[in-house]
């Protein structure tokens, strides 16, 4: 990529500074901090040091030296630490950091971790936490986002098409079940595949006008598409009941057997005491299965011509055309399949909630799903799970901080992006190996980003 000059060492003084390989030039750092503290002193003397106070009718000038000195001290220490940190970063690093290595190990043991996580997810409702409605509910929400993340991952992570309107397909799936179930009384199990197909159809509708667009322009159009769907849901009162939403959506059944009290119900047939928890646990397992299907489908797709073409399209569209790959088909298939999983998740959302309104499908939802994919590391399946845990569970953990919780959540997100600009698990394993035995050894462990 880089010309041969790049191999000629970029000297330590390439940015004009003196090399600082041995230790830190303490005098220099102290001098720099002192200058910064001096400027802070000049500024904070009138701002903090002096204070006009009303005492009776008189205006008196008071001094607040403790504040003044605190400000100067903070700037001095802050500058000092910053300078130390900066110089330390300048030194050549000795291979990847411990954090990078940990993430790499996580990536290499992906299969084992995945199986352990799946087993943990399956036994969760049977542990003592399983009796806690709040935990089951949060875990179900988490799995919805995992599934949405995996679905959007097809479009954004694999095909490289930045989609800011993914929530539109989620809405299409949700309204598809809600409308069909309330009007025709069809079962969830019949409507589920239908809503997926319907969402895929919408994916193709979105796909056609954006075939020639890439990057920022594509993002704007998909953003508009998401809003169009929401605005239609609000304004098409006759069909969608507008902002009032749809109430009384039929609940899920155990393949036809209802979760109620009385004869012929789930509790009766299985000889259990009726508990409202049964339906929650069942919903939990439904979304778990749906999410696992999404994952296995994507994993398999990556090894098939269509999936490889998605990744090739992400890397270089012009090269794809020169190899006789039809970019139209590749993009439309990515949009359609990504949308399909959004539709499945949407119809699950509406059967769980029993009530939907356009408010559930605002842009912030699209943004959260996209954040899950980007934070996790584009294209990484496990990364999506970790990021979804972060995005769904963090606000719950921070609930006690009340109004500061979104601030903390945002701050944590910024930190991750500073740390790992390409997402937590920005590693990619080849979909096929020529030398499967020593494949692991030849993977060069190299620092991402920067």
């Amino acid at each position, binding site marked *: *990529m880089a*010309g*041969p000059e790049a191999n000629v060492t970029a000297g330590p003084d390439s940015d004009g500074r003196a090399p600082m390989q041995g230790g830190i030039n303490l005098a220099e750092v102290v001098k720099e901090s002192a200058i910064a503290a001096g400027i802070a002193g000049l500024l904070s003397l009138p701002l903090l040091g002096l204070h006009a106070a009303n005492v009776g009718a008189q205006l008196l000038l008071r001094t607040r030296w403790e504040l003044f000195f605190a400000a100067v001290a903070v700037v001095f220490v802050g500058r000092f630490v910053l300078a130390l940190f900066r110089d330390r970063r300048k030194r050549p690093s000795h291979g990847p950091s411990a954090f990078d290595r940990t993430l790499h190990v996580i990536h290499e043991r992906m299969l084992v971790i995945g199986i352990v996580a799946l087993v943990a997810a399956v036994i969760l409702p049977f542990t003592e936490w399983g009796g806690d409605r709040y935990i089951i509910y949060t875990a179900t929400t988490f799995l919805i986002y995992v599934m949405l993340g995996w679905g959007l991952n097809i479009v954004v992570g694999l095909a490289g098409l930045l989609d800011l309107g993914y929530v539109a397909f989620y809405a299409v799936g949700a309204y598809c079940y809600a409308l069909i179930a309330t009007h025709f009384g069809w079962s969830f199990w019949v409507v589920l595949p239908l809503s997926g197909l319907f969402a895929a159809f919408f994916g193709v509708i979105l796909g056609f006008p954006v075939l020639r667009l890439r990057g920022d322009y594509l993002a704007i159009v998909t953003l508009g598409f998401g809003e169009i769907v929401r605005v239609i849901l609000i304004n098409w009162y006759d069909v969608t009941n507008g902002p009032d939403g749809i109430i009384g959506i039929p609940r899920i059944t155990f393949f036809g057997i209802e979760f109620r009290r009385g004869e012929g119900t789930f509790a009766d047939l299985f000889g259990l005491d009726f508990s409202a928890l049964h339906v929650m646990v069942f919903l939990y397992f439904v979304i778990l299965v749906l999410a696992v299907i999404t994952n296995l*489908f994507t994993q*398999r*797709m990556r*090894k*098939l*011509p*269509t*999936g*490889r*073409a998605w*990744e*090739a399209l992400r*890397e*270089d569209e*012009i*090269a*794809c*055309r*020169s*190899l*006789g*790959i*039809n*970019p139209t088909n590749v993009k439309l298939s990515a949009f359609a399949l990504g949308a399909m999983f959004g539709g499945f998740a949407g119809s699950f959302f509406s059967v769980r909630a029993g009530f939907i309104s356009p408010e559930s499908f605002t842009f912030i939802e699209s943004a959260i799903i996209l954040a899950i994919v980007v934070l996790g590391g584009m294209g990484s399946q496990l990364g999506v799970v970790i990021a979804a845990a972060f995005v769904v569970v963090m606000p719950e953990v921070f609930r006690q901080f009340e109004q500061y919780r979104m601030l903390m959540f945002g701050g944590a997100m910024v930190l991750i992006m500073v740390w790992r600009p390409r997402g937590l698990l920005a590693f*990619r394993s*080849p*979909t*096929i*190996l*020529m*030398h499967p035995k020593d*494949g692991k050894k*030849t*993977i*060069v462990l190299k620092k991402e980003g920067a």
Partner: protein
Amino acid sequence: MLMRDLSRPLETDIPADALLEVQHLTMRFGGLVAIDDLSFTARKNEITAIIGPNGAGKTTVFNCLTGFYKPTVGRLTLNHPDKGPFLLERMEGFRIAQKADVARTFQNIRLFSRMSVLENLIVAQHNRLMKASAFSLAGLLFMKRYAKAEKEAVELAKYWLDKVGLYERADWDAGNLPYGDQRRLEICRAMCIQPALLCLDEPAAGLNPRESLELNDLLMSIRDDEGIGVLLIEHDMSVVMQISDHIVVLDYGRKIADGDPLAVRTDPAVIKAYLGEDEDEAIPEDIVQDLGLSTRTGGTKQGDGGNA
């Protein structure tokens, strides 16, 4: 199917041995004439080089041939040895590679850099694998026919990787390969679509003399063993003069010479285009040698390698 019918020529007035027949190709960008009434023929089992000073319109010819540009005027006929003739100027970009089997490489390498070397070569066989897997459905259902097709694809990839000595690095990310290997991989990738015509845009740019010699061997082996036509844009005269069977010289979008290497390098118009107008002045001996203009074979000398 409509596209396919339109892309067949109505009359076949093409010479029997011509693989590619370019007739009156003109490409205008607004008022700028990039190619002006260019006609030439490329034959099967031959390496045809297109040379010319910078900005002469060489890459534009390639972009017209491979569907990235629609020519303003002209007919581009590809006489496919198995599938019959195609009119390339009427075909949509990607179909030229898909149906007419015209492969190309790029002046600035365009590999799928975050995919592995092997994956790059498998992606090149996309259309064959799509057909074998019934648009990926057979693969989704773990049917044997896809596994078999993929195995064949890997075999073809292995054949080409062995040929250029990249077999050991098949699982590397393409973007991590050294520059020369990336150039060779791009040629392998183009060969994996099993083309009838291979178009190479400055394959020797940035290669060192040894790599450049290896490239000569590779290109000659492609010509002799695979039985296809090669169309080559190149600045490196040691490559052009040594391996070309036929050279077309462009200057300001016009063809100024056309013939075998010996005829082209003694052509006064070519010398004028490369060395300037003033013919009274004697050309310095070292420049003559660098360009391979002397009557001896200039092949052992290295050219200046274009924009290395």
